[in-house]
């Protein structure tokens, strides 16, 4: 399968909507056609070659899915991997907003930081952020009811506010800290945060599991500690998350305290404090 590399010549003055630059789309056309693909720079229609050097090669294995590599600073490029449904996408640098939003399959690896709304409404596949991500990651797009609804999001740095807002399914892990309102209005799924969290943790949480590794306290007025035996569930969850490594790598050896809530909304969610 094809491996296409787009190397940024220079950062554009205005933000670019990169939703059309998907591995499968680019693998289906020639290098010349890729260079002529239109992009919008404000109201100006430009060619892809105006911003990128294009290099098309073969993937390491013939059976591999198509792969697309962005090399350079992509901070001004939004919607990278938007609604992506397969293939591998790698950003060797930073990415703009809405990376991996509404993606259904495939893998996205952003080696640097990502902007806001990363993996919003992610429905399948895997998104990895090597650095930090902005606000509303794994959350919902404005006007929609459900946030992330499948797949896996890994943030190896810090996350902004509203991480996992209205999340419904899937797994989202933050190796660093998360901002205010983490897991707010969470409907289901699993969120793990290894570092510190901001205020209003799990505000309005309905269902789902929020795992905290740092020495955290849970809002006592909205969550009640529960001492019931949930050993089997913890074994399944901790073993699964431990495979992601990093601060979660030793999770299978840890025990935890469990808090049920958010009681203020009659929620059946849980906050797990690993220790």
């Amino acid at each position, binding site marked *: 399968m094809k491996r296409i590399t787009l190397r940024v010549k220079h950062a554009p003055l205005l933000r670019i909507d990169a939703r059309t630059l998907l591995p499968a789309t680019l693998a289906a056309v020639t290098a010349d056609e890729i260079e002529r693909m239109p992009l919008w720079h404000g109201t100006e229609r430009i060619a892809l070659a105006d911003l990128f050097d294009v290099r098309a090669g073969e993937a390491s294995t013939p059976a591999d899915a198509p792969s697309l590599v962005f090399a350079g600073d992509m901070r001004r490029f939004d919607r990278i991997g938007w609604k992506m449904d397969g293939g591998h996408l790698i950003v060797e640098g930073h990415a703009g907003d809405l990376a991996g939003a509404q993606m259904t399959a495939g893998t996205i690896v952003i080696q640097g930081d990502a902007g806001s709304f990363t993996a919003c409404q992610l429905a399948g596949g895997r998104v990895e952020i090597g650095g930090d991500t902005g606000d509303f990651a794994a959350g919902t797009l404005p006007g929609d009811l459900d946030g992330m609804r499948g797949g896996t999001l890994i943030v190896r740095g810090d996350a902004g506010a509203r991480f996992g807002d209205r999340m419904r*399914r899937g797994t989202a892990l933050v190796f660093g800290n998360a901002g205010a309102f983490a897991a707010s209005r969470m409907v*289901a799924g*699993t969120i793990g945060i290894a570092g510190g969290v901001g205020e209003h943790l799990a505000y309005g949480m309905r*269902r789902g599991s929020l795992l905290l590794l740092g020495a955290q306290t849970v809002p006592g007025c909205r969550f009640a500690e529960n001492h019931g*035996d*949930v050993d*089997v*569930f913890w074994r*399944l*969850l901790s073993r699964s998350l431990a495979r992601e490594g990093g601060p979660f790598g030793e999770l299978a050896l840890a025990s935890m305290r469990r808090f049920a809530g958010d009681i203020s909304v009659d929620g059946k969610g849980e906050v797990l404090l690993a220790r």
Partner: protein
Amino acid sequence: MSGTASTDTTAEVSAPFAINGVGIDDTFAEAFPMKATRLIITARDATWARHAAVAATGFATSVIACGCEAGIEREIPACETPDGRPGMAILIFSMSGKELAKQVERRVGQCVLTCPTTAVFAGIEEGEAIALAKNLRFFGDGWQISKMIDGVRYWRVPVMDGEFVAQETTAVIKGVGGGNLLFLARDTDAALAAAQAAVDAMRRVPNVIMPFPGGVVRSGSKVGSKYSALPASTNDAFCPTLAERSPRSVLTSDIRSVLEIVIDGLSDADVAQAMRAGIEAVTARGAEGGVVRIAAGNYGGKLGPFHFHLRELCGAREAS
């Protein structure tokens, strides 16, 4: 209708072929396609996992009246189970996917959900999905919690010792039921010893169960009866007390006890391997073990598509 095996025989048999002095009849076991699934039951320790497994596979000797045939396949060490606790693998076979689904739900609901500290998981990944906890979750009365972990949906049902965790579905595959061996022995002691040795050997074979008590059945049956209400009746061809009276008898006067092992497996190769292990275990004991002949039950080859010829199972071993 109780204590009936699922085999019959119509063949006139003799045993010119022998291994270590044990005659091998020139006949075959006839087996049928079934629907099968494997469940992994785990618990705080192996004792409670076994309690649940024994209960869940109880009253499951024959599809004639039990709805399914079930048994414990093996004990699973903690390092091999989904939750890292000691477990038991059980196999359940039925004649249709619909009946199997019914049996799985009933047995898990009454025998596993009820057993302290247990959890239950699908033991087969590929195949048509049937409900495992999909409906049992409603026992939680609205307090049940769904959890997707690694793409698998589990249900967490609150119970009095904590919560019962079960996978939402298990997979059904095609299995083979009704493989069998008959040990024709000089007395009951010899027949029992041979059958037990065979069962011990067969239990080391993966993917098979011997669903009868202790793996052994004494009431082999034939299809039909002089009584129209009965679908099966005693297999008089192998009843020593009828040796001189039944026109179907295949027993000689030196055979005074016959015991049968019925084998269900996930494939015909598994059943064949188990039968081979059973034959080897019995023939290794020699004629002094008291088994005069080894036979098998069939329906003349007209009903079941799987035919396990004893002499083929014995391979190229020389007669003695």
